[in-house]
């Protein structure tokens, strides 16, 4: 139970920590914003968990997978809005960006946090598990906080060296990874067909081990991804980068012409 709890934290809590840290550095957000995100996210999470049996019955039993995948897609699209606002920066959009980022955190809390509630709700009532679960929670939270601190320092340094595009790129890599990792949800409920495996690096870095979990959270690492996942990953990562680079060049040349 101890190890399970730690692994659950690595798999489901770490993505929340990583996203919060990236957004916190990217937007130079306040602590009030952070607190508000967690309150709204926790509230939405409770509603989702409360209705999860109903949602599970939607679309012939495919409701949970579809809702989780849609939330990842929505988080990805919201990250694109953050990128778009970097091209056309305006001070009046500052609060709008806080809303966008807040929604991203809240949706991630719903999709990742629901697993926690199910786990703790199901097992806390059992005898002899409370101690190991609490210990696992402290260990898991410790690992998440340590990694989040390291990422915070790294992201801050990158932003100082390369500007806000660097932190936005980190966010894009993260959301792309999460989006691609949610594709098997559609395959497992037979919404899309399984495609052939692109490669197998289980012997190199397995998804079962700590580094596999960490890389999966940071950039969507899969030891045996399907060809569809590789294609979607490449397109979802490179297309926004290319489009925003081109838009940035255009807006710079336009502002240069006006002067």
């Amino acid at each position, binding site marked *: 139970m101890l*190890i*399970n709890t730690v*692994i*659950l934290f690595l798999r489901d809590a770490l993505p929340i920590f990583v996203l919060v840290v990236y957004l916190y550095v990217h937007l130079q957000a306040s602590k009030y914003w952070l607190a508000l995100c967690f309150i709204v996210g926790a509230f939405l999470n409770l509603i989702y968990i409360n209705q999860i*049996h109903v949602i*599970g019955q939607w679309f012939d*039993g495919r409701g*949970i*997978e579809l809702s989780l995948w849609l939330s990842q897609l929505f988080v990805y699209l919201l990250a694109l809005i953050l990128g778009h606002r970097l091209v056309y920066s305006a001070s009046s959009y500052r609060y709008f960006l806080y809303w966008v980022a807040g929604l991203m955190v809240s949706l991630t809390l719903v999709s990742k946090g629901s*697993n926690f509630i*199910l*786990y703790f*709700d*199901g*097992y806390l009532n*059992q005898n002899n598990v409370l101690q190991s679960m609490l210990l696992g929670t402290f260990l898991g939270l410790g690992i998440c906080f340590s990694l989040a601190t390291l990422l915070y320092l790294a992201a801050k340094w990158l932003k100082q060296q390369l500007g806000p595009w660097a932190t936005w790129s980190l966010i894009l890599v993260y959301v792309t990874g999460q989006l691609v990792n949610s594709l*098997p*949800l559609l*395959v*497992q*409920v*037979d*919404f*899309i*067909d*399984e495609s052939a495996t692109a490669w197998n690096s*289980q012997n190199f870095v*397995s*998804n*079962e081990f700590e580094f596999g979990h960490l890389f999966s959270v940071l950039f969507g690492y*899969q*030891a*045996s991804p*399907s060809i569809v996942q590789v294609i979607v990953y490449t397109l979802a990562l490179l297309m926004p980068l290319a489009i925003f680079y081109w838009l940035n060049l255009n807006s710079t040349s336009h502002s240069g012409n006006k002067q």
Partner: protein
Amino acid sequence: MIRPIQPIIPVKKLFVITTLAFSLFCHPLLAAVVEYHIQLRNHLFFPSQITIPANKKVKLVIDNQDNTPEEFDSFSLNRDKVIFANNKASIFIGPLEPGKYDFFGEYNPNTARGTVIVEHQKQESPDVN
């Protein structure tokens, strides 16, 4: 005089395109697949080994008879599904290459463990959806 509005795409063409799109994208929803049933009792999978045919999509129906939820998880199958207490859940797997694919219950990984064995088969299971 008002001229009737001509549709950009003729209705017949639209029908053909829609039918083609439906048959392409909804093909997995309509295809018949073989079902395999697994029970979860006292945090153990029964049977803990199932053999399925190679290169075919199959449906695993997992019946959680415990009073606690469990998460069916497999790194090699790339599957991850919560099964509520005293509930059933379905997961589609395959087409797969011959080999062994381990799965486990994420909340009880020490006890709830199993293997999907994929091999070339001549006969199919009679339990067809």
